[in-house]
């Protein structure tokens, strides 16, 4: 369970998050949606301790994480940023770095770390690509390597910032399946999405954010019923019934 309470944070001279509270139950995928600049990425960065906090707390399974040393925090909460470097290392080495928080000095990876990294790659259907340089992989495959790194980090809470950006529709759906698999493992998964359709159809819960606060948080049905997407985004949220359930789309 990831619990964010009364979080106030931002950048020097600019408060972005204003007394924000949000609960992400274990075993579920929660999407944060909201207009550009409302503070979605800042929320994720702050929740994993990359940005300083003015007030509030973040706890994982009841343990406040923001006051923990970096390595201990990284054993509880994993974060995949939106902007990522493409290092000139192999896929296996990249995934092994997910075990970094568990190493004490001199930080040499152990046989156990290697086993976990290989299992994580295998789970992401990347077995056989261990020695392939990350830079030579396609965008979708690279994304899978990053998710494998998060798997290897083995934390109860996982934060993903726009994991579907730059991916084609096939890889986007695959990414959502991976998020669901993480949740099935009992993790609390919080991700930022721009695609409202993906969020409403593939996430257990949706948190609508506006101007540094969570407007409403609930299931797709509850969000639909609230009508808040129409107001926050200035669009008209529509839905049609399909054999696989409701399909959501937006109109101006």
């Amino acid at each position: 369970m990831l619990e964010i309470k009364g979080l106030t944070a931002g950048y020097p001279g600019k408060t972005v998050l204003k007394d924000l509270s949000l609960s992400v139950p274990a075993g579920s995928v929660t999407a944060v949606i909201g207009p550009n600049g409302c503070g979605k990425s800042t929320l994720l960065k702050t929740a994993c301790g990359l940005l300083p906090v003015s007030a509030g707390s973040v706890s994982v399974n009841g343990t406040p994480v923001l006051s923990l040393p970096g390595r201990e925090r990284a054993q509880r909460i994993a974060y995949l940023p939106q902007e990522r470097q493409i290092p000139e290392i192999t896929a296996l080495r990249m995934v092994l770095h997910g075990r970094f928080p568990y190493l004490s000095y001199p930080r040499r990876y152990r046989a156990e770390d290697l086993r976990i990294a290989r299992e994580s790659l295998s789970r992401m259907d990347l077995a056989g690509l261990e020695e392939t340089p990350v830079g030579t992989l396609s965008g979708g495959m690279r994304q899978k390597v990053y998710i494998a790194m998060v798997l290897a980090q083995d934390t109860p809470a996982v934060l993903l910032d726009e994991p579907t950006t730059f991916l084609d529709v096939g890889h986007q759906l695959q990414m959502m399946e991976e998020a669901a698999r993480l949740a099935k493992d009992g993790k609390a998964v919080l991700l930022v999405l721009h695609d409202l359709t993906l969020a409403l159809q593939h996430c257990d819960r949706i948190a609508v954010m506006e101007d540094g606060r969570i407007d409403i948080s609930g299931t797709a049905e509850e969000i639909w019923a609230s009508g808040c997407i129409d107001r926050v985004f200035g669009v008209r949220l529509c839905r049609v019934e399909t054999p696989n359930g409701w399909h959501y789309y937006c109109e101006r």
Partner: protein
Amino acid sequence: MDKRKTVILIAAAVLTAAAALLSLLLGAAGLSLRQIWQAVCLGPQNAAGRIFWYARLPRTAACLLSGAALAVSGAVIQAVLHNQLASPGILGVNSGAGLAVTVCCACGVLSGWAVAAAAFGGAVLAVLLVVFAARKTGASRTTVILGGVAIGGFLSALSEAISTLVPETAMLTGSFRVGGFGSVSHLRLIPAAVLILVGLAAVLLLTNELDVLSLGEQTAGSLGLSVKTVRPLFLILAAMLAGASVSFAGLLGFVGLLVPHMGRKLVGGESRLLIPLCAIGGAGFVTLCDLAARLIFAPHEFPVGILMSVIGGPCFLLLLIRRKGGAGRA
């Protein structure tokens, strides 16, 4: 570690050892292996012994140390700034160390420790200035490079100004600015060697941190690495390595740029392999260049700094062109 990469590391070590041996043997006055052995056993008792102990050994050690230091410094700076075009020279390290040495010469402070410490201090200050300027202006990769160019140019201009105002300084720093090992002495080499060996050991012990840092500031931070502590530490280590090298070898270009690029092509970007290969390869590259500079116009010496730029520039361009070709095919 796969077999191919192990073979590459061993081959680089053997080539560098061979270059070091040739550097001890060859020069204006050649030495035989027997003479070197006698010099090692008996000390500087005859002409050959004195050539070995006072000229060849410090010079070869200087080449090895300088090459290793500059190449590792370049690899570290490139990893920390996520920019393969970054190098000690581009970041103003050489200019900072150069200015400090010029100030030392102008003030008449010529002791080995003082010059090494000044070069180190100047290099660190230049890097800190560049990092500070980049942070203030957005810290993008481009601003780091542009900041380095601007600060490097400014510091070089200050060096020139001092050399103009105090003409004796120009005489003392002339060979320094070209770069070379002709005037290396134990006195100047030992303090810098201590700094270089400490710097190399520290970087080799922190290769995993360097790799995690090269994943990007946010990813590294989310993995529990203290980016605010580790990044300046690496930049200071890089400045220490380059500054110490500059203190006795002067301004040698392209080593910090060319060797890490070649190393990456051979063993990839993992620091646990790349850093040792850069140390070995950089040492061998500079030793071979110095040997060539000594032999091309023997008994006269060609400035090794000029030779390295003549070799380094086209080689680097070739690497860039081949890399672009490879990317196009992919």
